[in-house]
């Protein structure tokens, strides 16, 4: 049985003389900040002609918690818990990006076991982030929470791992400059291995339910197309960029940490529409499982923190550094300027979700209002990161 979208025939539409003004005046609607599908407090001022979007201006700032100003008033290590709260789904990767920038700033080396642990936790974070995103997007499309329950079921398993390792489900505050805070026991590693071994079965089931669903296909194919030239010029990164066909993954380009040791592929999309972005996340989850299997097999016992790094009175030398990682949402970077004191002089976060929203208007023009929510869902924004 194939799905067809029935269109109203011309004679069934209401006659033009009956209703008020159909001469092309635009109706301005403010979607948000409280809206069931805006992924947080995000507001879009849309100008509609009927149901078609003619203009879209996003309004930010409803969660602006001046993270950068707090970063200037706090020590380097004191800012680490604040980085958890940036992209609150992926606290481990936020921590890693910040630790990487400070390690570049002060040229600190990281021992090998710590690097392996970082990779394992980052890929686990990527798994639960992509699964949650697919769940949220389907709830926006009207699936009323059931795929979200499946996604959160897997997420809870991974959060249990995070909790037993770092003490907190979401705000882990786990990375330190020069390594990690707590060592993972062999029992933890074997539990992680169990979860990773069972994940592909969940992915098969999830993909069959979601990505081969005819409603999802009808609602997401050819919706929200993004051309690769516009994506590169607008600074789009992450799965959204790769869905347009541009092969740029910071794990391969920069080769930070020990990613060059692992064999994994980069999925690329062809059309740049919403369906490709969904497929990107599903395929990336499979590649993450591959990386996790290799990392869990190769990890060796050893120290997890560089003993030469001072924890108290940590003062990096004068200078500046920009460090970036491939977070689940895109390129997460931290730009730090140090003046030799205990606090950074300038602490800047390069937020992937914020910059990915540059092209929201371009993608939504000409589509109906219902598509706007689907497109917004596929951009994968988290307001903690957009507004900082």
């Amino acid at each position, binding site marked *: 049985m194939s799905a067809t979208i029935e269109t109203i025939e011309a004679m069934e539409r209401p006659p033009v003389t009956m209703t008020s003004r159909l001469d092309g005046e635009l109706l301005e609607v403010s979607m948000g900040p409280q809206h069931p599908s805006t992924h947080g407090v995000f507001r879009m001022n849309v100008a509609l002609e009927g149901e078609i979007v003619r203009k879209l201006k996003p309004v*930010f*700032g409803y969660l*602006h918690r*001046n993270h*950068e*100003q707090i970063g200037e008033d706090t020590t380097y290590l004191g800012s680490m818990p604040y980085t958890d709260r940036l992209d609150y789904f992926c606290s481990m990767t936020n921590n890693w990006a910040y630790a990487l920038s400070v390690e*570049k*700033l*002060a*040229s600190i080396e990281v021992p090998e076991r710590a690097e392996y642990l970082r990779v394992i936790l980052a890929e686990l974070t990527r798994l639960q982030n992509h699964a949650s995103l697919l769940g949220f997007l389907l709830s926006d499309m009207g699936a009323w929470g059931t795929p979200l329950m499946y996604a959160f079921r897997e997420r809870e398993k991974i959060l249990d791992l995070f909790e037993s390792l770092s003490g907190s489900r979401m705000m882990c505050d786990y990375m330190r400059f020069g390594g990690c805070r707590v060592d993972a026991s062999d029992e933890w590693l074997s539990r992680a291995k169990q979860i990773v071994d069972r994940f592909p079965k969940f992915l098969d089931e999830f993909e069959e339910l979601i990505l081969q669903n005819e409603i999802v296909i009808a609602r997401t194919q050819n919706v929200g197309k993004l051309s690769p030239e*516009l994506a*590169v*010029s*607008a*600074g*789009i*990164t992450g799965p959204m960029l790769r869905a347009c066909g*541009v092969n*740029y993954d910071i794990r391969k*380009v920069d080769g930070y940490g020990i990613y060059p040791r692992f064999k994994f592929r980069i999925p690329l999309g062809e059309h740049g529409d919403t369906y490709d972005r969904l497929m990107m996340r599903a395929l990336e989850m499979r590649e993450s499982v591959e990386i996790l299997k290799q990392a869990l097999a190769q990890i060796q016992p050893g120290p997890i923190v560089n003993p030469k790094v001072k924890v108290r009175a940590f003062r*990096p*030398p*004068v*200078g*500046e*550094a*920009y460090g*970036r990682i491939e977070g689940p949402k895109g*390129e997460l*970077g931290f*730009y730090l*300027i*140090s003046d030799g004191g205990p606090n950074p002089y*300038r602490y*800047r976060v*390069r937020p992937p979700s*914020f*910059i990915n*929203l*540059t*092209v929201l208007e371009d993608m939504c023009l000409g589509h109906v209002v219902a598509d706007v929510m689907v497109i917004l869902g596929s951009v994968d924004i988290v307001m903690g990161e957009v*507004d900082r």
Partner: protein
Amino acid sequence: METLEQIKNRCELAARGAKVEIVANPGPSQQSSLLIDNEHAVPVARFLRDHPALSFDFCSNVTGVDWLDRVAKKTAKVKQVVDGVEKEVDQTTEEKIPGYLEAVYHLYSIKLKHGPLIIRLRTENRADGTRLPSLTPVWRSAELQEREIFDLYGIVFDGHPDLRRILMWDEFKDHPMRKDYVQPDDFEWEPTPHDEVLERAKQHYTSRPQLDGAEKITAPQS
């Protein structure tokens, strides 16, 4: 990627009259930057984006920085006559550097997979409404980030398609991320204040002069 000197020479050749300087980064991260003068910023940026050997087509990060008036101390060895003997003595000179605002752009190349190249644009002073050319026509990713710098630092970007406040509400005055911004006195009772919170708290409590050490915190104002 070519070295900074080579890129600097290319830029100066490409845009006539462009003054490009290298700002060395003293730290170990080896990320020095190029300072471009404001008049020729857009042609140099276009050259950096379009030239096939450079192709910096991806502007990753645009940051605003607020530098207050600084004093730079330089020590140099100077020959001086001390007790009748000519010796080399360290002489420290102090140089006053007036403050300015800066916009720092981190550029990468997706086509050639190299980077980062860091370019800086400086304003003349820290007055309100200082202007810088906008690089949004060159890289679209600067659009929202330059709006944020306008909102939080007060730099007006000429040539930006839509410059208005982005994170703060529209009626907000001043630019909060500047180093000399004073927050409104939004007092709330704290159980254990210290440092500057203590200073602000003292203004909201009435004093009990009959106790010793009358500046210690006492009963709150009703």
